[in-house]
């Protein structure tokens, strides 16, 4: 018996529906069909009138969720793909994100974004938008990398009084398995050291945590011990854990799957440079996807995103600087 990342997301939603009458699910094809990725499979039957198929109207979906949240509900909205949240952009960044600041009335909505690249998915079914949403005040942006985090962080997301952008990685959906959902449960806003080391720190999140661990495994054969920090939450950002790690290793590689201008890696590097300058023994570096849309063909895709090979290469340069 094993639990996948998507199972965990389904389970979390089941738990939430069972335990919190304020929760309902709203999204395209999520009721009878159970969602494009089956994240809501069977839930419509178990919880009649709590799981709704909706028209192809991302902007209105978020608008509805905001209105329902004003009236005390805790909606979870599924975007069919993160990329389609561009249609709901205005409601997310201007309506949901500003509401508490402006009015004092919180908007506890959770927006699930199936994110990140998979081979053959192309420019519009592969995007990683965490670095876009994190720029806006008033949003919490979460990026679980493990099966247990997928479960616990979704539960925690719904408990937060703020709008949460919940970035699930599609590549992890079925690929990532775990014996069970464990109780090793950190609060939102705390990063996790998933592999300890002393020669360099890789700060990653979501699927890239696993690529970083692979790269670290390879480099271990050459005697390098790489510490891998899983941010878990990109906003808020646990810079203390990152700085503590850099204090141990003296070297930083910030790793992300998103486009290379700005984004999470720039925020991490610039904060470490500002607050942990004296801890650094080498220039802090970033590794991101390339500066083009996510290509469709798997051969191009594999060269577009960071891989264990390119991470190793980056780390070797960093280690020998």
């Amino acid at each position, binding site marked *: 018996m094993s639990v996948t990342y998507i199972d965990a997301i389904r389970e979390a939603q089941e738990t939430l529906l069972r335990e919190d009458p304020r929760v309902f699910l709203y999204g395209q094809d999520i009721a009878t069909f159970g969602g494009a990725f089956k994240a809501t499979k069977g839930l419509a039957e178990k919880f009649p*009138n*709590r799981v709704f198929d*909706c*028209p192809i*109207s991302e*902007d*209105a*979906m*978020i*608008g*509805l*969720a*905001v*209105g*329902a*949240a*004003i*009236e*005390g*509900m805790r*909606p979870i909205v599924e975007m069919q793909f993160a990329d389609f949240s561009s249609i709901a952009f*205005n*409601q997310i960044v*201007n*309506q949901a*994100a*500003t*509401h*508490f*600041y*402006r*009015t*004092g*009335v*919180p908007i506890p909505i959770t927006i699930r974004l199936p994110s990140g690249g998979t081979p053959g998915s192309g420019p519009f079914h592969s995007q990683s938008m965490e670095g876009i949403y994190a720029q806006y*005040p*008033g949003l919490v942006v979460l990026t679980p990398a493990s099966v247990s985090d997928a479960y616990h962080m979704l539960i925690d997301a719904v408990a*937060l*009084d*703020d709008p949460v952008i919940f970035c699930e990685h599609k590549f992890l959906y079925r690929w990532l398995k775990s014996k069970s959902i464990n109780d090793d449960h950190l*609060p*939102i*806003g*705390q990063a996790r050291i998933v592999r300890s080391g002393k020669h360099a720190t890789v700060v990653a999140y979501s699927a890239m945590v696993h690529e970083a661990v692979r790269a670290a495994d390879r480099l271990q054969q050459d005697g390098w011990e790489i510490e891998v920090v899983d941010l878990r*939450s990109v*906003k*808020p*950002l*646990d*810079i*203390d*854990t990152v700085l503590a790690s850099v204090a141990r290793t003296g070297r930083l590689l910030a790793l992300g799957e998103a486009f290379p201008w700005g984004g999470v890696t720039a*925020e991490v590097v610039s*904060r470490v440079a*500002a*607050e*942990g*300058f*004296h*801890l650094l023994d080498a220039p802090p570096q970033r590794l991101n996807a390339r500066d083009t849309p996510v290509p469709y063909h798997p051969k191009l895709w594999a060269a577009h995103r960071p891989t264990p090979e390119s991470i190793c290469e980056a780390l070797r340069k960093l280690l020998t600087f």
Partner: protein
Amino acid sequence: MPTNTDGVVTNRDFLRSVFHSMLRARILENKLSSLYKAGKIVGGVYLGRGQEAVSATLGTSLIQGKDFFAPLIRDQAGRTAFGESMLDCTRTYLGSAQGPMRGRDGNIHRGRPEMGMPAMISHLGAQVPVVAGMLFAKRLQGTLEGRVGATCIGDGASSTGAFHEGLNLAAVEKLPLVIVIGNNQFAYSTPNSRQFVCADLVEKARGYGIGGFSVDGTDLLACVSVIGEAVRRARAGQGPQMVVARLLRLSGHGEHDDGSYVPDEIRKDHYGRDCIEVAIRQLLENGHATADEISSWENEFSDEVQRAVAQAQQEAPPDPYHEDWTALATRFPLTASQPTAQPVFP
């Protein structure tokens, strides 16, 4: 909405109540306009002059504490009718920290979502699905019965994707949403001819599968009967209702704008008349009010306005040193660090 002891609203009382809100709003807005010209206002001033009959009728048709009302930029009258205090208005315009938005947002954006009146964002059309969501919540909570949510928008906003998605969603969910489109013939400077092609925006209602009504927005009696009917139908469970009210904006787009692009013919035609004058005539002709009463109301409301302005003017502006500078309701522990505007040295 005033009810007598049996909960039945008499037509006379209802009309007088609508008219009170119209007049209060007009007097208040005239004052805001003078204050703007005197440089006393923080931010811009956008008036509902000429649209009071529509807005006040809608606000009066709603039940405060039960219904929802999402006002837009020309809804001072509707706000007043729905029970917004005058101080909420003057405090916001005059920059008092005690306004409902505490200086964080301004003027026409003010709202009290906890009282059923959401605070609009600027992006036109965006409030439509929000009202739908408020109603949707009530359905899930089992308390939708007999409840209505309403919003007003302009002819220009009918061109937004948000309007379309929101209204269609409300129709699919069969929610008791009343949308009142104030077709004042212009969106800022842009005439209807560059905004839509159908002869009357109400022709859109059929495509959404919802109820549709047209009304002369300068005619109080017509507004009361048509908007009242739309609200009744929504309340009775007949799904969303659209009312298109034809009228003319009797100011510029905002007080910074003289509206000189509005052709004289349009100003002089039927819809260029002032709904307050029409309402006064209608009240007098039908014996619902006397000229003396009307002038006493004018005095009364002018005093109210003066007091609300005077009070707001005395109050302190927001103090940046007492702001907590976070947009989140959650107070994360310090490890979960938020971005800092200021440099952070080690």
